[in-house]
């Protein structure tokens, strides 16, 4: 098995992207602080306060992971096939690599979050820095010690990042398998769904609220939403389930994929 070689290659192929990503994030946040602090200091005299925030870092990391997933397949597939790696080893290596990347990023995100929380202690600095877990589930975490909350944020982010990577990788393999027409149809179709389909449904909902379907849908979707994302652990498990589902369909698409010319 060339599983370890495949895993090692796939992890290392993201080394530069990951370093660059955190360098940019760090620079952006530092720039934000550098800009916000003088305004805050000047503002305290006339009663206005500017609060710099680093919230949302996890969400940006999720986007990064999805894009990393999208970019992971094509190049790695041809490189590993060139070097005698089977699709199975590429897939399993990819799963392991995504777990390692998610772990690194969830730890890094939390470290950055804590670092910016420390900066808040400096005089003249008003800085809000919370992890996605704290921002989304503040009431559920109210009884927890700050240290435990910080620790809990790591597995929470890990599951979230994993799900986004799974989605990105699935999209990438799906588009690789599809022909030109399929790519066009799915590309335009999903664009239309988001730009016209969903607003259309909301428009119908606002015009005809008396339709019984809305009550059924609302009831069902809300229950489903609560079950999947009602509490931090539910969200974590739901993300893992999503990751497993995306990975399963990715494997179905990948196991017979041929190298394109």
């Amino acid at each position, binding site marked *: *098995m*060339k*599983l370890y*070689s495949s895993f*090692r*290659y796939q992890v290392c*192929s993201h080394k530069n992207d990951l370093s660059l990503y955190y360098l940019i994030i760090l620079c952006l946040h530092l720039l934000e602080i550098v800009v916000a602090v003088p305004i805050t200091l000047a503002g305290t005299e006339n009663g206005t306060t500017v609060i710099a925030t680093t919230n949302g870092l996890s969400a940006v990391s999720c986007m990064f992971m999805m894009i990393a997933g999208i970019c992971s397949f094509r*190049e790695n597939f*041809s*490189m*590993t*096939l*060139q*070097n*005698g*790696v*089977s*699709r*199975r*080893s590429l897939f399993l290596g990819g799963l392991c690599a995504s777990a390692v990347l998610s772990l690194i990023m969830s730890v890094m995100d939390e470290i950055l979050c804590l670092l910016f929380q420390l900066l808040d202690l400096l005089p003249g600095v008003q800085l809000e820095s919370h992890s996605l877990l704290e921002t989304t589930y503040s009431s559920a975490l109210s009884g927890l010690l700050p240290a435990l909350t910080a620790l809990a944020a790591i597995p929470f982010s890990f599951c979230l990042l994993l799900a986004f990577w799974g989605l990105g990788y699935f999209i990438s393999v799906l588009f690789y398998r599809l022909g030109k027409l399929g790519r066009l149809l799915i590309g335009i179709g999903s664009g239309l769904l988001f730009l016209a389909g969903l607003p259309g449904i909301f428009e119908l909902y606002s015009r005809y609220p008396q339709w019984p379907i809305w009550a059924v849908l609302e009831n069902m979707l809300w229950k489903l939403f609560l079950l999947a994302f009602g509490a931090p652990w539910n969200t974590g498990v739901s993300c893992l389930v999503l990751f497993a589902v995306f990975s399963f369909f990715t494997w179905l698409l990948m*196991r*017979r994929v*041929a*190298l394109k*010319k």
Partner: protein
Amino acid sequence: MSILVENISKSFQQTQALQNISLSFGEGKICGLLGRNGAGKSTLLNIISNRIFPDSGSVTIDGAPAAENDSAQSRLYLMSEKTCYPESMRVVEAFRWTRNFYPDFDEDFARKLADSFQLNLKTRVKGLSTGYLSIFKLVTALSVNVPYVLLDEPVLGLDANHRELFYHILLAKYAEKPFTAVISTHLIEEAARFIEDVIIIKEGKLLRDCSREELTAGVYMVSGSAQSVEAYIKGRKVLDVEAIGGLRSACVEGTPDKADAGPELEFSGVDLQKLFILLTNS
């Protein structure tokens, strides 16, 4: 110990690329895989190296199934026309990663070869010209140290000097430790010097699978005046006749029958390229 291809068929939409092909690449031989453009050579090599799947049939490498089998695939390396390395990767990085996948990859040897070909190790794959891209892939293929090396158009874009250097290194490497090299090339005249076995594919079908001697021994040229050549070839299986003025030159299957020939007739062997053209011309 061999690569065994059994009843392989493959089609791409309306095109039948391979039709029920069965052959084997023996251990420690230099084999020429010949065919015209679109004959199915690259398709065959891609199936052997697990890049594409056949519609039917199977491939085994030293007895183990080749498809989706890491250990079987680690016994072969395909240098293909398509570049499978990431474009942003530097040559030296590609060498390092090849060692990650093929532990027997000789990086020092690769560096020496790169130096002989004046291949800059720091150049990125996307920055290499067609010729140097072939050289990069050749250097990797020759340093990987596996029992089966498949070379698909290995000298594409190489100048005469580099082609000679490649043939020289290939033979030296082969002499030092024999391995199976399958060379798919259109430069038959050059490759004929060291090819031991010949496999000819025509329109997806296997036309010949034998040793080079066997193939060329069964065909000869007879030349002389038009009248005497015409008389000689009557009743024999003639592959081709060329006429220049009053002279005729015929390519005949079988062995020369000098007793039946007049003194003015001349007999000679047929080179591989000429024979290939005769066999594959539609």
